[in-house]
């Protein structure tokens, strides 16, 4: 009949009391574990969604701010360009893994046929239209490839020399190359056509044109279509996106700048009014670079924004890929909030109620403790016996509530997500400058209530510790008295 055996006998002999204690721990434990499960699931979603959104950020005009201006103010506002120097300065921040700035233009070609995917027939071929996007780059390894938007499958990327000198080289999509029988090392030709436009007749005329000859140095394949191929429901949209990308041609920024300049200069020759208006404008005004910064981690977004905002000219802002998260994560956020309140309430209730239950439990046992002490049992073992009784029951209760709480959490989440999802705008697609597409459904899909080992450990740890403390404190309070006082 040592104290360990007495402890276990205490549980089985007093089934009623053990069951009450078990029930209390189970109910409160379920609440806590349910709330923690939801909390954890939501924070996992935040992480995984932000991970998917990536760590890209760009600088854009802050339309919201700009729209607040009165018409008069708008007239007077001088919108500064984001210069290369500023981009380089921001690119040098410690949060930035790598960065690029890009200028783009659309060009047509007489010899090159655009890739049309499966929608070939829908197009009427009619002379050279501006089917191709020339995307200038400054970052030689190509940011889009590093960010898995595309993947180099043949040839090579640019060298820094080619970028700096504006060498006439290009990386094109493999599909475009196949369609036009182009290989690495071949050359192809765009035409840069300057049109005049008669406002009265609405007729267009060719004012000037020149050829742009580029050498293929590499072929890429689009990456993002593959991921989403299975979810064919949005196939139409995706095909368009993909087609656009297949007809994108990567070239050094300098190439694009030269063509833009040609357009501008030739156009000025045809339109005197316009030429006058533009008189005195610096050359640099062609350089509307779109910067793109890739941060070390999505979690850096906020800090990055904070640091960059003061550097920007008026009416510019930082747009991060993770910004989208806030607009899609609505239903989840509300659940996370609710579960936080439940958690706080449940923890307080648990400490109070288990404390009370254990106290009542012990008040009944006070005499018993005195008897053991009067028989010469050591204080440690008397405490140990009661702890065995309470902690074994607590352990069972916590184990059960881990599962029941998890079950409750997934039930609650399911109903709440569904209810919330129906009221929110359905299947809105979010496309931005950053070209990442995510739907509310994607967020829901990555929401998963599950048990992971660190959570289990923490839950056991906190649960057992709470009960241990609420047991030991009154126990020690009793046992430190001499046996006569306890037995009185």
């Amino acid at each position, binding site marked *: *009949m040592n104290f360990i055996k007495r402890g276990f006998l205490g549980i089985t*002999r007093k089934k009623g009391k053990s069951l009450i204690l078990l029930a209390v721990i189970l109910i409160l434990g379920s609440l806590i574990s349910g709330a923690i499960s939801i909390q954890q699931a939501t924070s996992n979603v935040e992480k995984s969604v932000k991970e998917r959104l990536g760590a890209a950020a760009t600088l854009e005009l802050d339309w919201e701010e700009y729209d607040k201006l009165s018409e008069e103010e708008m007239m007077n506002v001088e919108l500064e360009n984001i210069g290369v120097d500023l981009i380089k300065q921001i690119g040098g921040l410690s949060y930035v893994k790598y960065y690029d700035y890009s200028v783009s233009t659309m060009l047509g070609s007489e010899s090159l046929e655009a890739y049309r995917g499966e929608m070939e027939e829908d197009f009427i071929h009619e002379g050279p239209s501006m089917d191709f996007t020339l995307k200038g780059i400054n970052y030689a390894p190509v940011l889009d490839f590093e960010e898995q938007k595309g993947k180099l499958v043949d040839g090579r990327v640019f060298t820094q020399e080619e970028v700096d000198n504006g060498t006439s080289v290009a990386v094109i999509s493999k599909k475009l190359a196949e369609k036009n029988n182009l290989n690495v090392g071949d050359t192809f030709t765009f035409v840069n056509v300057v049109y005049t436009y008669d406002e009265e007749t609405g007729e267009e005329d060719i004012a000037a044109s020149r050829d742009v000859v580029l050498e293929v140095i590499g072929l890429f394949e689009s990456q993002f279509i593959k991921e989403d191929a299975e979810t064919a429901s949005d196939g139409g949209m995706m095909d368009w996106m993909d087609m656009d990308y297949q007809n994108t041609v990567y070239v050094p920024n300098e190439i694009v700048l030269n063509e833009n300049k040609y357009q501008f200069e030739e156009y000025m020759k045809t339109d005197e009014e316009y030429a006058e208006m533009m008189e005195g404008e610096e050359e640099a005004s062609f350089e509307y670079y779109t910067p793109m910064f890739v941060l070390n981690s999505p979690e850096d977004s906020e800090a990055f924004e904070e640091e960059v905002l003061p550097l920007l000219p008026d009416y510019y802002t930082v747009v991060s890929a993770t910004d989208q998260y806030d607009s899609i994560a609505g239903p989840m956020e509300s659940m996370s909030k609710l579960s936080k309140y439940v958690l706080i309430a449940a923890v307080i209730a648990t400490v109070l109620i288990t404390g009370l239950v254990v106290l009542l439990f012990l008040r009944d046992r006070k005499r018993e403790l005195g008897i053991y*002490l009067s028989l010469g*049992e050591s204080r440690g073992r008397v405490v140990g016996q009661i702890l065995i009784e309470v902690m074994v029951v607590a352990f069972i209760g916590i184990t059960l509530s881990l599962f029941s709480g998890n079950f409750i959490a997934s039930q609650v989440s399911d109903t709440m997500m569904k209810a919330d999802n129906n009221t929110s705008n359905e299947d809105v697609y979010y496309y931005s400058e950053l070209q990442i597409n995510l739907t509310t459904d994607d967020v829901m899909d990555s929401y998963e209530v599950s048990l992971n080992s660190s959570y289990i450990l923490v839950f056991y740890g906190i649960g057992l510790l709470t009960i241990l403390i609420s047991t030991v404190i009154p126990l020690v309070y009793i046992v430190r008295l*001499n046996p*006569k006082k306890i*037995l009185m």
Partner: protein
Amino acid sequence: MILEAKDLNYYYQDGEQRRYILKDTSVSFEKGKFYTILGQSGSGKTTLLSLLSALDSPHSGEVLFNQEDIKKIGYEKYRRNNIGIIFQNYNLIPTFTAVENVLIPMSITENELPEDSKTVAYNLLDYIGIVKNKADRPVNKLSGGEQQRVAIARALATNVELILADEPTGNLDEEMEQEIIDIFKKLAHEHGKCVIVVTHSNEIALQSDQAFLLKKGVLASYE
């Protein structure tokens, strides 16, 4: 001399004043004798017994067990290995059976005991008058007299020589009282134990080998 109390003082602080329950109380006990300590209710009998059994400590003075200060032995150790205590209200553990209650101190003590403690416990209960089928009952399903027998068996289970009992028959009827007193006599006279019984009953005092009277904090021989 198995047990000796020397100049025990015990008081309650009553505002500024000390109200002495025991004042310079000295007394000694021998093995093989049945002692009673007589006194009116509230005279301090329980206080004295709790000092002798190390359930409480005196404000001054000492208690010697076999010439050794029990403080030096250690109160816990002294209770565990050297004495058996019997209370007026039995103080058994209600969730356990009679035999389990007897087994408890056997698992606590450091005294050498026979291997088969269960048999010893049953035999002890049987000797005190609790038969096997009652020994396996939870103690709260036993009568008062039976419960006090279990408590006596528990006090004897660790094979001690000193038994201290605080009004052990206070809750029992006269017939039962006599049976219990007979057990105490037998323990002292046949088994050589020192039995000290606190009581307010003259009848019991008359049957003891030596009786003391506790009055106004002073302990005196009672003839």
